[in-house]
């Protein structure tokens, strides 16, 4: 009798214990946005959103490790986020140069070339933010098979204005949040990264929209990129996995036709819908000019968007063709820039010791545009800030640049130098081009600091233009709607001769020894007058 009471009490307590964690409601939504352009290219953007309702990021002072049970939310990523108490995480792996003039704004703004990782973490607890940043980088490097671990303190900075915290702060007492931002522009993205990325989805690549992600075709695109974005929102923690690709059916058809279909773009169709998805849609932004034929019939359509639903129409192979068009002609004159701001960044100078960084921002609109400009360059370049010049049509305009914040490359405890950070607010007058020039000095690295392919050069991270509040004195001015990235640059550094360590040491030491020996001989030997024999 006592034994049954004890057993039932134990079983009851187990129920109580297991019922204590809050039941997390999870939702999964998929979306594919397709936008054909007038030059024949097709922009595709996959968005896979998993919402973990009721969850919140771990407080770093809180060391309790509760069990994590998720249905749709990926456990590997959840463990990483919980381990390092990350509030907001953004990782993007991109290849190619996003052409803002031709393609407009992307669906997801992180389109800088290479790997870009930034995370907001609450500051507190036994581990410092920097220690958790190191752990986070290495864990993500293992998860995505990318060399994110090399985004070390030589590339990490903290530009909080350009990458603001968009999560709601959830911890009760206001502990400060810290940002860590790092980029590696020479990182490539390939199947090795896509495979673990797809494993984070509930249906993987076997069902739903992810069926279309054939690596051979996605990575053949003119621009392609993967993104992982974690935010803490009002309902809970939101994970957004994105794949964007700018595909070119004209190139695939040998320059003749711009007809495309899922089969021609991805070599796949959506044949199985994802059963756990709360919603699964395909949005097609139809071109303004008629003359195309769309198949199959969309679920709903209006002037600008046609919507398909893979759940109702299976297998789904959306196809757009231009039956009237005999052969595709590139539209001439080239279409006007799609964004109000056109950006260009170059590195001038053929010398390997000095160069000139030149950024040119063109305002295509009728109102002044005010943007924030952020440049984080590794310590390979020395920015000569006293040569910073802002020029509009040949005349220097110092008034158009304000709020200059510059951090020189700090010497860190391990002997490395951090990156130089330059941040400024620029106002570009309407229909004008603003040119910003800055002299750069290039460093001479040690023998061991050069990479194996030293003659290639080093990639410089893209500069970021970010929206800022428009000052009152700018009449009717506006800012850009979202972040823009300039292209990366290739920096050519002078290299020593890598076959020479032994030779250099022996030659230098020989010369020094000869001089040293001669002088000491002169100083220490005795002088004699010698009679010469005939």
């Amino acid at each position, binding site marked *: 009798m006592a034994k049954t009471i004890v057993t039932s009490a134990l079983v009851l307590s187990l129920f109580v214990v297991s019922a204590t964690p809050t039941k997390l409601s999870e939702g999964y939504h998929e979306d594919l946005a397709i936008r054909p352009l007038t030059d024949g290219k097709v922009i595709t953007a996959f968005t896979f959103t998993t919402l973990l309702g009721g969850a919140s990021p771990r407080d770093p002072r809180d060391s309790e490790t509760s069990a994590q049970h998720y249905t749709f939310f990926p456990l590997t990523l959840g463990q990483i986020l919980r381990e390092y108490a990350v509030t907001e995480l953004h990782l993007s792996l991109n290849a190619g140069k996003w052409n803002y003039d031709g393609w407009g704004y992307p669906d997801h703004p992180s389109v800088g070339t290479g790997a870009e990782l930034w995370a907001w973490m609450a500051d507190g607890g036994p581990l410092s933010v920097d220690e958790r940043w190191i752990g986070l980088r290495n864990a993500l490097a293992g998860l995505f098979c990318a060399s994110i671990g090399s985004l070390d303190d030589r590339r990490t900075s903290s530009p909080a204005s350009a990458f603001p915290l968009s999560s709601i702060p959830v911890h009760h007492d206001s502990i400060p949040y810290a940002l860590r931002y790092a980029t590696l522009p020479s990182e490539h993205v390939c199947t090795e990264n896509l495979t673990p990325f797809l494993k984070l989805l509930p249906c993987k690549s076997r069902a739903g929209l992810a069926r279309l992600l054939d690596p051979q075709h996605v990575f053949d695109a003119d621009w392609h990129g993967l993104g992982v974005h974690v935010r803490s929102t009002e309902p809970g923690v939101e994970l957004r996995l994105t794949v964007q690709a700018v595909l070119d059916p004209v190139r695939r058809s040998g320059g003749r036709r711009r007809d495309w279909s899922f089969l021609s773009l991805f070599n796949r169709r959506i044949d199985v819908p994802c059963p756990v998805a709360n919603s699964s849609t395909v949005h097609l932004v139809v071109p303004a000019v008629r003359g195309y034929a769309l198949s199959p019939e969309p679920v709903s359509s209006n002037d600008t968007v046609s919507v398909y639903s893979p759940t109702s129409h299976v297998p789904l192979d959306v196809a757009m063709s231009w039956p009237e068009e005999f052969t595709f002609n590139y539209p001439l004159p080239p279409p006007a820039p799609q964004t109000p701001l056109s950006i260009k960044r170059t590195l001038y100078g053929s010398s390997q010791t000095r160069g000139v960084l030149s950024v040119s921002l063109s305002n295509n609109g009728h109102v002044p545009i005010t943007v924030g400009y952020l440049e984080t360059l590794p310590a390979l370049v020395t920015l000569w800030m006293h040569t910073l010049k802002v020029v509009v049509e040949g005349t220097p305009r110092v008034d158009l640049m304000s709020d200059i914040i510059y951090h020189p490359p700090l*010497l860190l405890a391990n002997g490395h*130098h951090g990156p130089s950070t330059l941040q400024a607010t620029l106002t570009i007058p309407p229909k004008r081009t603003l040119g910003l020039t800055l002299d750069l000095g290039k460093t001479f690295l040690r023998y061991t600091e050069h990479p194996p392919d030293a003659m290639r050069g080093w990639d410089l991270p893209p500069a970021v233009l970010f929206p800022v509040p428009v000052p009152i004195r700018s009449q009717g001015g506006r800012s850009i709607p979202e972040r823009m990235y300039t292209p990366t640059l290739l920096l050519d550094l002078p290299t020593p001769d890598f076959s020479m360590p032994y030779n250099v040491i022996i030659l230098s030491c020989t010369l020094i020894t000869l001089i040293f020996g001669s002088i000491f001989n002169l100083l220490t030997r005795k002088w004699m007058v010698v009679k010469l024999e005939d």
Partner: protein
Amino acid sequence: MDSSSFLPVLVSFRLLLAFIPLHSISGLQHDHQLSSPLTSYARLKEGLWLYGHDIDPYAGGIFRHSPLFLSIFSTVLPPLPIVWALSDIVGAWALLRIWRARQRVGKGSSGRDGLVAAVSLLNPYLFLPSLALSTSTFENTAVLLALMFASEGKPSGALLALAFSTHLSISTFLLLLPVLMLLVTSPVSQLASPQEFRGDLRTACKYAGQFAMYWLVLFGAASVMIGGEWGWLRETWGASLTLPDLTPNPGLWWYFFTEMFDHFRPFFLMVFSVHLAIYVLPICIKFQHDALYASFLLVGILGSFKAYLTLADPGLFLSMFVLFPEVYPYLRHPIVTTLVHIHAALLLPLFHALWVTEGRGNANFYFAASLVMGAAGGMGMVDACFAGLRIAFGDVAEGERDKWAVVQE
């Protein structure tokens, strides 16, 4: 012929050049032969910009000049070429006064005033770095002022100038001992009649204490100027000891430490620094009868083996040769030394341009040119050392030339 009438011509020529804004002259500012990361004008301007914008100039390895430069150029003087021209002229005047003190001319003028001033003002090794606005001009002027005051027997001026020059460039510490010796003896040439050191040791120790006091005052002024932080020690003086910046220069250190593996770096840095220091005592002991010649030889050591060498450092050595005409007959290979110097001076900018500007050569070319420069400096040093010792034995008499020889065993 009294060449002192050339003095106003030289001075006005130098001042005139400060005002001509030739583009080729402003291109000299970035030349690696004429300025190093410790003396470059671009870094001086950058440090002043950072200081003016409330950013610590010593945070990031950009600015390696002394805080004294920061204070002078941000408050009292603007960094204009005229300041460098005036410093050049002051240096030439100091050399002239040393010459007059050595020749015991006093207030009058010797017959060779113009030649001495011309050797200082027109020496391309000193003239071009001054046009390139390299702060090595100020360092050289401070050294010459220290030697000038010491030659004229003014201890306060000499020790203050030496403290300044040590603050601007830490390697000038080597000259402390010869300057102290010079203060307690006479600058007049004793090379031909060497004798034991007759100066007063107690006075010399007193002067050493005075130097330490001046040095500490300047150190305190620099610390106050920079706001109590100690980063400037690591960036300015520490740079000569740890070589953080591997920009090529005509010296022997940069390529050696570029190619050095990290494991051996601290050892060889120690070896190279101690190598500079070990010349002080032997030279001062051997030339205790002529402290000015000892300081001349130590300037030559610095001019070949300093950490961040520019052409201004061997330039000071070559200019000071004019003070010692008594050793000219005993130099064994002056023509060869001159030719090797010309050789090096032509090869260095050529191979530097081939390597970094045109991309056709590689670093080894420039390294070879720096070895030639080192050899030229070494040959000048060895010859000066030999001649300074050989002069004590005089010439063999006319008729006996082929019967006797003066050698070392």
